[in-house]
């Protein structure tokens, strides 16, 4: 019996460890553990005014703070039956787009690329490959700029409130942003080229991919929960199919669909909705056939999405005029509100119960990483067995496992504070 432990997986968001027990060529135990302490976010929301819930939940994670803020606002609005304007929806879409560009670019250049280029870190990579870091920073700065213009600052946007925005950017700000977006297509194209040419391991494991699906739009904020295996349900019915459970070794929760694992994220969105990508993004896929069963291809899917979101933002800014607008009146009432959006790493669920005093009585949040954890464990197990058959040494084994974990783009800080609700 061999035991392999990676006590601190580096170059991922949050803290995680992995324990493997191996007998001959079989992995007998595979435990991926978020070692981050639990912060009990859902519990903290109980008894707090629903109007400020998003101010608390955006603090679950700075990297995805726009997604948490927007999804929380939508869930409260659904409970209070507030209908926001088309402009508010577009501004929220822009917030999410900025965040997705920033998140993907950070993940690809800072976490993934050093492994493939043979550097221990992006900082080491910067000393001999400065252009790569400049490209990364150009895309990250673009994403940051979108969130800052629309939301007031780069991380934890604050102008987005219940019923609208406290500030609508001026025309000149959007004009400059539009120019910056157009210019960034070059870097986005180079990024896609770079990540199409990486030598991804040829590893496949069959899986189900879930994402939001709308008729004419790539997954973002609306639509039904969908998979190409015939799963197709209303957002509000998620709790009839998806459940969370805890493992005694972890502070994170694991989400499964009717007891079986599934995956979410860029590769899932692309698997289910490739046709809806922008034309410019589709054109960048020249050489490899994206395999939805190869988790390493998630990296290339993210690179294509960067171009897709840049072109989507260009479209939004070209087709719309933004003006000052009153924030919708909020009437407090008792109710339950559910909202689902696509965060950079996949579907994010918010489910609030609100009492007649406007305070939250119960909250359930399911993050993308919770949904991917089970798949990640099964991937690691299957991939390690492939590597063992190829007689891989321990050093190679550890590097490859880390590459696989990073390919999923987990955020362990987000995965660790989720309410145990036994639905079904």
């Amino acid at each position: 019996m061999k035991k392999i432990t990676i006590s601190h997986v580096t170059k991922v968001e949050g803290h995680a460890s992995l324990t493997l027990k191996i007998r001959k060529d079989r992995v007998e135990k595979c435990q991926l553990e978020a070692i981050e302490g639990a912060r009990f976010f859902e519990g903290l929301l109980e008894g707090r005014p629903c109007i400020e819930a998003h101010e608390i939940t955006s603090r679950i994670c700075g990297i995805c703070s726009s997604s948490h803020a927007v999804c929380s606002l939508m869930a409260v609005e659904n409970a209070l039956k507030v209908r926001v304007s088309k402009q508010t929806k577009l501004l929220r879409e822009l917030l999410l787009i900025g965040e997705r560009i920033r998140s993907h670019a950070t993940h690809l250049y800072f976490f993934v690329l050093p492994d493939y280029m043979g550097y221990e870190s992006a900082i080491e990579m910067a000393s001999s490959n400065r252009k790569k870091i400049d490209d990364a920073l150009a895309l990250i700065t673009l994403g940051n700029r979108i969130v800052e213009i629309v939301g007031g600052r780069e991380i934890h946007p604050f102008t987005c409130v219940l019923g609208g925005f406290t500030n609508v950017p001026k025309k000149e700000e959007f004009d400059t942003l539009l120019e910056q977006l157009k210019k960034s297509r070059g870097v986005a194209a180079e990024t896609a080229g770079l990540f199409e040419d990486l030598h991804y391991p040829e590893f496949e494991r069959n899986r189900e991919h879930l994402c939001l699906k709308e008729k004419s739009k790539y997954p973002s904020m609306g639509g039904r929960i969908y998979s190409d295996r015939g799963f197709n349900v209303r957002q509000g019915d998620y709790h009839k199919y998806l459940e969370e459970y805890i493992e005694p070794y972890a502070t994170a929760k694991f989400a499964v669909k009717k007891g079986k694992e599934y995956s979410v994220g860029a590769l899932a969105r692309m698997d289910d909705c490739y046709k809806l990508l922008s034309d410019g993004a589709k054109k960048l896929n020249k050489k490899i056939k994206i395999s939805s069963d190869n988790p390493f291809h998630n990296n290339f899917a993210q690179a294509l999405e960067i171009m897709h979101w840049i072109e989507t933002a260009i479209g939004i800014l070209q087709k719309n005029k933004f003006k000052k607008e009153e924030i919708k009146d909020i009437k407090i009432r008792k109710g339950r509100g559910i909202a689902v959006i696509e965060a950079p790493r996949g579907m994010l669920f918010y489910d609030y119960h609100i009492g007649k005093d406007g305070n939250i009585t119960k909250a359930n949040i399911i993050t993308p990483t919770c949904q991917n954890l089970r798949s990640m464990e099964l991937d690691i197990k299957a991939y390690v067995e492939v590597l063992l058959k190829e007689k891989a040494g321990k050093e190679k084994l550890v590097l490859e496992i880390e590459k696989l974990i990073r390919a999923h783009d987990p955020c362990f800080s987000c995965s660790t504070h989720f309410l145990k609700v036994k639905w079904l």
Partner: protein
Amino acid sequence: MGCQLSIMYQAELFGILEKIELTAFPVIKGKNQKGPFDIIFLEGTIVSRKDLKIVKELRKKTRVLVAIGSCATDGCVPQIKNFMKNVEKSVYNKTGHLGAIDPVPLDRHVKVDYYIRGCPVDKIEFLNFVKDVLLGKDFKTYEKPVCHECNLQENNCLLEQGKACLGPITFGDCSVMCPHLGFRCIGCRGPYTDANLNKFFIVLEEVGLTIEEAKKMMNKFAGLKISDMIEEGIKQGVVDKRYSMKTKGQ
């Protein structure tokens, strides 16, 4: 998790890194040394017994400890748990394996030499700190409340418009970004040292908040530190007892 990564989002930092030996940074680096260190920048709140042990060990290994972001300086949103009962049970069925303790900022358990405030931390402020270290200057934190700069910007006062803004009791140096765009200050940089908390409660009551609502507003980012200030004020007879904001343990 935002603070650590956001400080990397600036081209200038990569130039400065050449002048520094960055020996450990697990979110970015694959190879990390175990110390001792000259300076440690620490992000996050202490939420478990394990965290506490790690923080104490790190303190022993470093000459200078810098708390970055609201979590490390004030406990941020997780510290709300100190003012609530039964939070753990409502999130997890079983909680024994978590080793959870009520979240506290770093300075409850170890000496903190410098604070870089805010949620998130201001990346330029971080850069300025590093530059000051390289120049051998002592980093000075801004010692005025948000209102000071807000007045200079000639923004319309949100409190005067009846909105519950925490500007008067919160450390400034944030470019007043929130009030400037019509959003009330929610106190993410922690309580201003000389804040008149008794008067501020009266102001919040005047804009229509109940005392309970006012306390909830004030315990969101730095409740523990504000609570300490209030209890001290009550002891000295300068804060009304009705405003007592004790933690569940007190």
